[in-house]
């Protein structure tokens, strides 16, 4: 294969992986705090429609990004009020957030269907970006790509090297112990949930401002769920999420290229590959029960009601 082609494939893999990475990184923080938010898909699709709308209405893709993030945060706060303030079942509430998000985004985005979007353009560092091969890979991608990598580094550092991260992990490990020490469990979880919402919204905005630059109903197509699976796959560790996201990005792009080359397999089977791959990966990672038990935040999914 020609180097140019390889570079193009690698670039598309990065583009396909970035939204998964961002959304999964947000959910990782949420789950580390002991909250299971199954509404990633819903927050992501809200982020996508807000991102598209914000950019289309203002003409500035960065305002679109901001709108996407705000949309995700708002959606996540709805989840937060229910699960954290009035202690509803997290699984059911997350599901309803996804259903509501898909509905709301469909309604909001009705007038955007078929409209041309605004693209968040790639960074251009002049001569650096023009370097052969590595120029475009390292210095010529879209800004959210760099933000996603920065996100991994920052989350990893905060989680394991700072007091804030220590408190977050403590809350996820035992909310009762944390409460007894006087740590405000609910506040910390609100912050984590909102961060997860911001990330999901950002990931959605990436879909409608970088990945496709248009609005299609249900355009997340299960990516929110794959992001959830990635967190399990990565055993709640940031750098492993990075690896997992790129693995999935690779599968997605691989099957697209296979379809383009007219491989003699039904295109539907190729399209099903990312979903099948998710199942296979989940099976592989979960079969070691010991490992899963050791890594799972002990309070994951359990409601907490402070008792004063």
């Amino acid at each position, binding site marked *: 294969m020609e180097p140019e082609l390889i570079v193009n494939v690698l670039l598309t893999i990065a583009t396909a992986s970035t939204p998964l990475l961002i959304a999964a990184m947000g959910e990782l923080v949420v789950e580390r705090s002991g909250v299971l938010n199954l509404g990633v898909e819903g927050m992501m699709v809200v982020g996508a429609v807000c991102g598209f709308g914000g950019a289309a209405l203002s003409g500035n893709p960065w305002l679109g990004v901001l709108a996407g993030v705000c949309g995700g945060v708002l959606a996540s706060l709805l989840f937060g009020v229910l699960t954290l303030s009035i202690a509803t079942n997290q699984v059911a509430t997350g599901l309803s957030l996804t259903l509501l998000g898909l509905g709301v985004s469909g309604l909001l985005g009705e007038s955007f269907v078929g409209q041309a979007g605004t693209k968040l353009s790639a960074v251009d560092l002049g001569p650096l970006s023009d370097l052969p091969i590595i120029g475009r890979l390292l210095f010529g991608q879209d800004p959210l790509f760099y933000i996603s990598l920065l996100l991994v580094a920052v989350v990893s550092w905060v989680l394991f090297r700072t*007091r804030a991260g*220590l*408190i977050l*992990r*403590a809350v996820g*490990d*035992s909310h*009762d*112990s*944390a*409460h*007894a*020490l*006087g*740590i405000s469990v609910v506040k910390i979880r609100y912050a984590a949930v909102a961060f997860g919402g911001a990330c999901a919204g950002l990931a959605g905005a990436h879909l409608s401002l970088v990945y496709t630059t248009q609005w299609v109903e249900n355009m997340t197509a299960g990516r929110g769920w794959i992001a959830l699976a990635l967190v399990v796959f990565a055993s709640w560790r940031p750098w492993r999420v990075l690896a997992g996201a790129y693995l999935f990005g690779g599968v997605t792009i691989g099957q697209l290229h296979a379809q383009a080359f007219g491989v003699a397999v039904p295109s539907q089977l190729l399209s099903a590959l990312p979903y099948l791959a998710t199942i296979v990966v989940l099976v592989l990672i979960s079969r070691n*029960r*010991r490992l899963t*038990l*050791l890594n799972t*935040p*002990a309070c994951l999914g359990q409601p907490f009601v402070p008792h*004063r």
Partner: protein
Amino acid sequence: MSDAPSVPLLELEGLRKAFPGTLANDDVSLLIQPGEIHALLGENGAGKSTLVKMIYGVLRPDAGTIRWHGEPIELPSPRAARRRGVGMVFQHFSLFEALTAAENIALSLDDAPPMDTLTERARELSERYGLPLDPHAMVGDLSVGERQRIEIVRCLLQEPELLILDEPTSVLTPQEAEQLFKTLEQLRSDGKSILYISHRLNEVQRLCDNATVLRGGKVVGHCKPARESASSLATLMVGSELPEVSHDDAPESGAVLLEVRDLNRPAATPFSMALSNVNLEGKAGRILGIAGVAGNGQGELFEVLSGEALLQQPESIKLCGSLVGQQGINARRALGAAFVPEERLGHGAVPSMSLVDNTLLSRHRSDSAGLVGASGRIRRGKLRELTTHIIKTLDVRCSNEQQAAGALSGGNLQKFIIGRELDRKPRVMVVNQPTWGVDAGAALRIRNALVELARSGSAVVVISQDLEELLQISDDISVMHNGNLSAPMPAQQASPESLGLLMGGAEESRDQLAGEKH
């Protein structure tokens, strides 16, 4: 301690705290002087935990005043309490299992220094007060004794003037407890005050300068424990003098109804204990007591005996003549066995379900009462009848048989669970922690019922952390340590000291020595 300083360190006046359905503390007052070990005595449910949570800012009093060095203060949060100089070691530790000892310590400090400094200071303190600990160890891997040391060190790092310990010895061997007392005495001589919560009279007499006794949420007396007798303290605590457990002589050797031979079981999860080479015999007419510090494999042994966990080799467990190592819990019940697990809520009973449904829990397949028809239909009428019968027989206090199990007090629910099994007249009964967290009246009733069952010809195995209880009711006693079970010794020959050595692993090290010699 005779010349008390004029200003007490802590003074509580008229504290009151109500929860839905109960008045946990009512008009509670007490005084603690600097450099004093003050006991807070009371039964389970007397309101001790509620009171100390108010002193530590976890709960807020509904009424009353807290004075600190004579000044009235508000304690809106544990943080505020720590800032004043109150430190607390919880009964159920407030530690994080997935974090290291040093991280746990850092979390409790409001302005934690860098990790290295912290580790260094923790090490200094632990040496000074004889509390060895490894700052980098993951708490989930540590024994309860080690965890308690972390709790104490992390309190001491805040240089508290008042240290609160909630039932600290309930998880320790007698030897570990003695070591703890030395640490506490050292702290007292450094001028610190200690509020020591317990229902164990002998250690209060051994250690404490003054005592406040709570009963039913109210203060029923202040005294100097050293000047009181154990029985006068007990009467103060319980309200009336309780009869002893009647314990006549057991038959010398009955038929072996439960036999465990060379039982081995690998650890099922990262946090559980493996069982190795366990042997035991449950004999008709006798009670076998199994002592040990929590987390040494008692829960795992119970699961294996009950059949909730199955074994590789069916021959490891023989129940009433059948090899049952691979048979489930209902098959074992059908052979005449009954089981009472340690955890009442969520294991022995479903808290959200009614007592009627909870009767069915262990009896839907196991007995002749015919609670379920051949088609799988539940016979509600019969079930309700049986439930009311159990409630009446064991004097379970509840509004009616439809009340949710979770709404009962610990003692009443335990009486119900034990009654549910006793009603079947089991030939073999295995009970884990029969009176844990149960008030004295209910505990007495339960112990008597177990002795009675054994004397009627059944084999009873009692797993307990409460040495006094085991010495009271057992005929033979074995000790669990690190997944091993010691050979049984007759209860008359056992003493707290000899059992304590075994609980700390003395036999194991002796075995190792013997092994090396060969």
